[in-house]
């Protein structure tokens, strides 16, 4: 039953999301809407029935149309009805989605606070004793940019946003990648991650998988994932403690021509991040990725 509802949900989302697609808009919608009317027209058309009788030896199809007119009519009416229902179901699901329009819009508070943090750093530097006009440009650049601290602030703000807005426990981790391996922590909030970086280099880990796929990875239910034959999750703790859901966001670096970091957000609630909400989740993660890329470039410049 769950599989059937999943298929209906996916179909509904695909149908609504793909309304912007050229072929869906111009061909599929036209076909779907016109199909019931076209078949009803054929059912009620005498010349079509005569054509079937003349061209079909046993007239089974013609008789079927004659005898089952009302059945066909009801099926067609049902298809038309379902089409409108699928549309409203998708709209309903979007409103019920955890990542609602309101949540997506209110996410800008994270960026507002991040800019405010940057302003505070500038203010503090300019007004403190550490600043003097004869300082080298490198020192000034290092003091005002501090990408290491920006990573810390970003991790904290992401944690605060998700925790405050959704009332679950979250963990935000930002990891540096070098030669497709986890090289160093860039930040973690809450601090003190229990996982060893080497464990995350396991080919089975979600991070390795997301770098390999070169796109965001969603683990809907970790407990379910680790039971799979080839899971995309490396168990580092007691297997019973492994629960919740996870997303891994790979961040590409133009200078290095490779993925230079990965952001992971873990939620204690299973199915918090859902594959069928990928597009909505992407609206959050695209902004995170963009910010991380900026800090990556500042880190390279600071070196």
């Amino acid at each position, binding site marked *: 039953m769950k599989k059937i509802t999943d298929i209906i949900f996916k179909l509904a989302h695909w149908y609504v999301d793909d309304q912007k697609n050229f072929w869906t808009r111009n061909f599929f919608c036209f076909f779907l809407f016109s199909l019931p009317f076209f078949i009803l027209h054929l059912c009620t058309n005498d010349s079509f029935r005569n054509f079937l009788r003349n061209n079909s030896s046993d007239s089974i199809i013609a008789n079927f149309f004659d005898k089952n007119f009302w059945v066909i009519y009801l099926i067609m009416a049902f298809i038309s009805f379902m089409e409108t229902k699928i549309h409203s179901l998708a709209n309903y699901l979007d409103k019920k989605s955890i990542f609602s*329009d*309101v*949540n997506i*819009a*209110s996410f800008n*508070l994270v960026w507002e*606070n991040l800019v405010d*943090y940057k302003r*505070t*750093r500038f203010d*503090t530097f300019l007004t403190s004793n550490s600043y003097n006009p004869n300082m080298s440009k490198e020192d000034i650049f*290092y003091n005002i940019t*501090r990408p*290491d*601290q920006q*990573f*810390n*602030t970003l991790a*904290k*703000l992401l944690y*605060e*946003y998700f925790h*405050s*807005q959704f009332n679950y426990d979250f963990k935000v981790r930002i990891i540096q990648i070098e030669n497709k391996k986890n090289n*160093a*922590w*860039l*930040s*973690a909030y809450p*601090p*003190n*991650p229990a996982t060893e*970086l080497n464990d995350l280099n396991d080919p089975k880990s979600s991070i390795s998988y997301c770098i390999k796929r070169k796109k965001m990875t969603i683990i809907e239910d970790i407990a379910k994932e680790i039971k799979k034959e080839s899971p995309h999750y490396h168990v580092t703790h007691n297997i019973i403690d492994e629960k919740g859901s996870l997303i891994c966001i790979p961040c590409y670096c133009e200078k290095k021509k490779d993925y230079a970091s990965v952001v992971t957000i873990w939620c204690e609630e299973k199915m918090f991040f859902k594959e069928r909400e990928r597009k909505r989740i992407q609206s959050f993660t695209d902004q995170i990725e963009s910010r991380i890329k900026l800090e990556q470039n500042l880190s390279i410049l600071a070196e």
Partner: protein
Amino acid sequence: MKKNIIDGIAFDIKTKVPVADSITLDFFNQIDNTFRKKLKKRTALYQEIFAKK
């Protein structure tokens, strides 16, 4: 939390995670007090805006 300074960046010795400096920590404290309130207000505002549409 034990700290170790490498090239101006403070790391936690055990976990090797960069540690927040004093400006960042002040900011964190400020966030703890205000972020939730701000987010509540902002969410209510967007709910109102989206409800009108």
